[in-house]
């Protein structure tokens, strides 16, 4: 054991310093051009593509020994992906971790924005599978880049038009396209559209990393983020007709949990930290038990 000490050790936060500088340069450029997808030399990470390799690289590039990291997957701190990535950074960067949104300086997330309002100085790192909002409408990368460059976004509305024509309303419920700072149309990653309003003028810095697609983009603090819509079909968020079964919250995003094979189910907050804090503060839902 002592023989290999000093030889086979990874650098702080796994990536070597040159790579981190390269990623930081991409991040700086992304912040300078809100919503623009900056190409970067994505590295192989010790996890498969699709598990958050982009987010992990962004986090690795910005994390320091003083940071406190929170990782969530679909809002939960205790799911496989979140637990593994948290453990990964504990091991390779030896940083403090937390599950409390308010205590964290960096929050890496997949598919959600925490319910608790973020504050200045916090960084939200999104894991992004497909960064190009126009991808399923226009398969050619050369063409989509040109469309971004020339601000040709009529096609994005064609998609929303199709939604209304088929379903009578805009049926896109996640990865709902947004326009950032009045310029670039951006895929907010597969967060529910419920979370879109939280991106608008958020005091926190929002960074997006797509490892397989090798793109980084960003929304700087206090930047306007507008969800696309039609004048006669304005953007709306999901509403739930029941409160959270555990904490009774009526203004959070709920997950459906199947309880048995006789149709029993309950709806609970997808943000586990938010739900726990409410229960600790004495809120009780229909199926909850007082703390």
């Amino acid at each position, binding site marked *: 054991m002592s023989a290999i000490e000093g030889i086979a050790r990874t650098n702080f936060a796994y990536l070597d310093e040159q790579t981190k500088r390269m990623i930081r340069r991409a991040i700086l450029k992304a912040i300078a051009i809100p919503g623009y997808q900056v190409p970067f030399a994505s590295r192989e990470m010790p996890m498969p593509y699709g598990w958050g390799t982009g987010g992990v690289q962004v986090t690795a590039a910005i994390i320091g020994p003083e940071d406190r990291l929170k990782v969530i997957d679909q809002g939960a701190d205790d799911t496989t992906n979140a637990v593994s990535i948290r453990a990964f950074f504990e091991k390779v960067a030896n940083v403090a971790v937390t599950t409390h949104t308010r205590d964290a300086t960096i929050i890496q997330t997949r598919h959600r924005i925490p319910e608790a309002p973020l504050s200045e100085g916090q960084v939200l790192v999104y894991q992004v599978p497909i960064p190009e909002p126009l991808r399923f409408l226009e398969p050619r990368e050369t063409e989509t880049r040109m469309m971004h460059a020339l601000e040709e976004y009529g096609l994005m509305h*064609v998609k929303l038009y*199709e939604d209304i*024509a088929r379903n009578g309303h805009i049926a896109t419920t996640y990865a709902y396209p947004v326009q950032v700072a009045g310029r670039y149309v951006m895929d907010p990653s597969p967060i529910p559209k419920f979370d879109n309003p939280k991106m608008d003028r958020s005091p926190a810095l929002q960074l997006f990393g797509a490892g397989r697609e090798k793109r980084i983009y960003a929304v700087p603090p206090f930047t306007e983020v507008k969800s696309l819509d039609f004048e006669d079909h304005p953007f709306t968020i999901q509403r739930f007709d029941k409160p959270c079964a555990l904490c009774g919250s009526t203004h959070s995003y709920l997950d459906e949990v199947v309880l048995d094979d006789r149709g029993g189910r309950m709806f609970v907050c997808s943000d586990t930290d938010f739900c726990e804090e409410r229960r600790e503060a004495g809120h009780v839902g229909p199926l909850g038990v007082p703390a």
Partner: protein
Amino acid sequence: MTAEQPLLKVSNLSRFYGGRIGCLDVSFDLWPGEVLAIVGESGSGKTTLLNCVSSRLQAQAGRVEYRMRDGRLRALSDMGEAERRFLMRTDWGFVHQNPADGLRMTVSAGANVGERLMAVGARHYGHIRETAVDWLQRVEINTDRVDDPPRAFSGGMRQRLQIARNLVTAPRLVFMDEPTGGLDVSVQARLLDLLRGLVSDLGLAVILVTHDLAVARLLSHRMMVMKDGRVIEAGLTDRVLDDPREPYTQLLVSSILQV
């Protein structure tokens, strides 16, 4: 048709494919409301010329100038890419031979017609749909098909939909590449009827590429005959077809199948 200034001025346009000639030293003017047919056998450079004029293909020599809505004549090569593309989706139209090249096959007919409107900033679903339905009627497509994708349409319907999609922004110049190719004769006849009506109602200027002299005779006022990348004869359609001067044109005209 008797406007004083040409809508489009093409001068000495050339395009090569390596050492081969695509089109060579082509010049012509097009006046507002005029239909110009470019005819010739396949490989004669008709489509190359059309693509060069419509700036879908870069010409290696020559100039294309277009009179903008403000009355100024501007060279396409002096415009930025953004301006050129804006022109292409507002003031111009392009009807492809194969409707699949000009349509979005996976989205509904209504969205196909509405796309250009949305591209120039229309953001009211109700209005966009109304316009789309109106245009479907004008090209004789049943309005209950507005939510069907073009994949569910016949060849003739697709071509009519492509025409509606191009005309919805009231363009002044439309390029057509064999618009009736691959359609059977009765469908072709109805499409030609429709095109002729639309062209005269809207006062469109059209550059029409076709190898079908009958189509050219029906639709066009003026005609250019191409061979090996060069324009060998040009003139009023009736004159060229009834009194062809060049031996090749005579051959072309005499090759029409008489039924």
